[in-house]
């Protein structure tokens, strides 16, 4: 994965999309996170200057909300739903299995920056519990023994999408 180049004009475009409104700094940061899969320091500095909010306040936001990370996250995100419904149907076993397969602790990113494994609160489709979301593809009724199969199926969809030139 090429090291992500930070283009200031893209950050400024995001800031002006939310017309430099200090009440929408969180939305700006979400767009930056989507673009670079983390919040580069340069982005926080530019948002701070444009919205006239101090860097400390943005830094608190960046380390408070789950959506943000200061370090680059993996190219693909694997989210295991840890909602109550999924929990009672074995979500913890699924998380352990994924952690073992990817050899990475929950909440961390694989060294090759390919996968980030994290537990999320509730994806809101409890009737499919236990649920695992890989990027925007949702897998239902996942149990700990299906983990390797699910990973392979996701890679196949990624390849299909890859061929269609999707970014």
């Amino acid at each position, binding site marked *: 994965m090429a090291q992500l180049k930070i283009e200031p004009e893209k950050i400024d475009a995001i800031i002006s999309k939310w017309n430099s409104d200090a009440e929408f700094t969180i939305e700006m940061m979400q767009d930056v996170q989507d673009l670079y899969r983390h919040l580069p320091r340069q982005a926080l500095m530019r948002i701070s200057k444009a919205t006239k909010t101090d860097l400390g306040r943005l830094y608190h936001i960046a380390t408070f*909300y*789950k959506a943000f990370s200061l370090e680059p996250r993996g190219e693909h995100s694997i989210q295991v739903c840890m909602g109550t*419904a999924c929990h*009672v149907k074995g979500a913890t*076993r699924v998380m352990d299995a994924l952690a073992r397969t990817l050899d990475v602790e929950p909440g961390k990113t694989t060294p090759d920056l390919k996968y980030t494994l994290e537990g999320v*609160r509730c994806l809101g489709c*409890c009737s*499919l519990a236990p649920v695992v979301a890989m990027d925007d593809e949702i*897998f239902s009724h996942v149990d700990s*023994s299906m983990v390797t199969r699910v990973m392979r199926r996701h890679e196949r969809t990624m390849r299909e999408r890859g061929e269609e030139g999707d970014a």
Partner: protein
Amino acid sequence: MPKLDLNNFKQEAQKFRSNLDAIPSSLMVCHCTTCLAAGAQKVHQALELELEKRNLQNKVRVKTTGVTAFCAMGPVVIAQPSGTFYGRTRPQDAPELIEHVAEGKELERLLFKDKDGKTIARQEDIPFVAKQKPVVLRNRSVLDPTDINDAIAHGAYEAIFNLLKKETDGEAIIDIIHRSGIRGRGGGGFPAGLKWKSARKAAKERLEPVFVVCNADEGDPGAYMDRSIVEADPHSLIEGMMIGALAVGATEGFVYIRREYPLALERLSNALDQARKKGLLGKSILGSDFSFDIKIHRGAGAFVCGESTALFASMEGKAGEPRAKYVHSVEFGFRDKPTVLNNVETWANIAQIINNGPEWFASMGTGDVSKSPWSGSSGTKVFSLVGNVEYTGLVEVPMGMTLRQIVFDVGGGVEGGRKLKAVQTGGPSGGCLPESKLDLHVDFDTLQEAGSMMGSGGLIVMDERTCMVDVAKYFVDFLMGESCGKCTPCREGLSCLHEILHRITEGKGKPDDLVLLEDLGAMLKDGALCGLGQTAANPVLSTLRYFRDEYDAHIEQGRCPAGVCKALIKYTIEPDKCTGCRLCVKPCPTDCISGEKDKPHTIDHGKCIQCGTCMDACPEDAIRVE
């Protein structure tokens, strides 16, 4: 598409209704997050392709719809007007489906079969749906949420039209809401009428703007009714907020919605755009002098932001840190101005109350709200019935139904006929109630005495394989990760609760741990700054109260009766059940399962790390845990 105003609204609505009936039958494909996950998109495309091939567009129409409430059977397709329910549809079923619907026949193969194998064609006749009384979900499987004309055809914006046409004054609107007795569906249960009244008064007295905000953070895990309402019927939410704004004199509204709900976010923003283009939102709505617009704020992942002051902090572009609520947000809320904050479900009821009158709403539910909203729970409540229950999905029932009725009559009882252990309501602020408490009525007040609460409506059914100490630990771990860390009781209290519960689940519990749990619980209840902390101990205290025996088993005998706590359990293969299919051998991470093909296998307990993969993989349920 002409802009609507007070003169042409009636005819336009009529026009939409008539071209709705022009094409007799339609296939409503459910596009909720769950059905989409199950492949609804491909089914929809296949149906449209088939329709073109047979050019039956003038006889049958394929439409998108919101939550059909029977998510377990996704992708769901409902044939209208007959209301026939087709579950687990696949793209290859398209030809047969189109053909049957065009000729008004039922496709037997895809019909619903209940657990005794009986086929039930119409969705309304399935017990899970029949026992419900949809008010907020009335448009499910009927309305296309992506098309505002369809919504108007189903009565959307009629209430605001009438209010503007009759120039009803704000106080009168508030009086209607007050007399309906409607209380906050977000879990707080505060009468909406009182809230609106004090916000309006504060704004008038201080000559300051007042804001109308919708709390769509829906942080409770296991609850997804707000998501479904926004996905299925976004205009009911918009119209409700407009009526609220008209009542309190607001011109600016906000919806604070979780970013983890991309589909709901998309449905809401394009519903807002469509409403603006129609002249139903923004400057001089329907040509009147009432202006109101709604902006969306996207939550970035913090359960605490469901709490009002933390929500406002987040909307002001800050970290979601609550502040003292000794002065209510109706006086000093968002931007320290008077603010009306209500939950999605509360807003979605408002238009219905205006259209059908407060008496209609008060007639549903329990208690007599004519004297005061506090003395009852009027209207209906949407529950998300999930966990080890036969039929999972959204259940909208009048307030006051008993837990037993919801779980057994509507939900079809515990999955796979297992024994029920507990029902958890109120999310992390709620509690776990045992089988003996199932006859309690579910409303704003009754569950409180039993140590739980109705909360936002999450209703998680737990069977005997659930360990209640593990459930308490689950909720404490959840809250520990979600506490904002500002106040000592919650930040340190949850760490200490976590420490004690982990020791107990690892068999290192001490008898006086239970006294500590109670002390910490009392301190949290009195000492914590906001609702998250104040109710954080409820799951622990309610499991202690009703499942003391499980705690004792863990502490005194180092045993986990439900077979969940890893450190205390052993997996063994039951020789008589094991068919030697070897499905469990490959996924086992430590290769500790051995035996010949088609012969009973054994687990080498030395190497086993109790990961439970074999139990999940085993088709014969041949692996015993104790």
